[in-house]
């Protein structure tokens, strides 16, 4: 389906215009946010929460 769409875009939409919009700065920024989010979650859950004493098991 993805491939089909790509071909579609290339032939009928004139593709070029759409593909020229490449907000690489925004992508990089979101990528950095994503990494921070993942690292924060790993720290909060695995280190701070599961690493504490007396985890409730029942």
């Amino acid at each position, binding site marked *: 389906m993805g491939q089909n*769409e790509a071909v579609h875009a290339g032939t009928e939409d004139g593709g070029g215009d759409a593909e020229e919009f490449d907000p690489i700065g925004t992508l990089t920024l*979101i990528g950095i946010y994503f990494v921070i989010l*993942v690292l924060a*979650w790993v720290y909060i859950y*695995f280190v701070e929460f599961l690493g504490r004493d*007396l985890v*409730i*098991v*029942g």
Partner: protein
Amino acid sequence: MHIHAYEKLWLALSIVLILALIGTVTYGAVGPGVAMVADSQSTIDAGGIDEDERFSEPRVEQVGENEYEAYVVAYQFGFEPTPIVVPANSTVTLQVTSRDVIHGFEVAGTSANTMVVPGEVSEITVETDEPTEYGIVCNEYCGAGHHVMEGKLHVVSQSEFENRGGDSE
């Protein structure tokens, strides 16, 4: 419909993130066995705690091999027994109730934390490690002395626990 490559990446990463969040919590439940405080105990008469066989005499009791049960009463403004003494490297189930108003039971700096509601018995099971001393705080505002309401949880070695048991009985 044309979807920009970055947007596809964004959608894919969002789905990965959601699955990862659900996955880690599932891992916590299956692997380390993290549980929630459940409504597992039937209600009791908050005014009749003196006649309740568990709470008339707040204490720690051995209920199985390396399994202990602690019956704890929260009141304005403290916890009984103080300290709660449990053996190291054992499984301890804390049953906590209140004889007056809603209190909190939080073993400071740990994950052991529950509300304490009059008429209800909050049950949490934890595994102790090395001998140490924890403080217990009430984290639900319960009256004028709320800020001084504290308890102690002492995790002592198996031998020390047995010695103490011998003294008091």
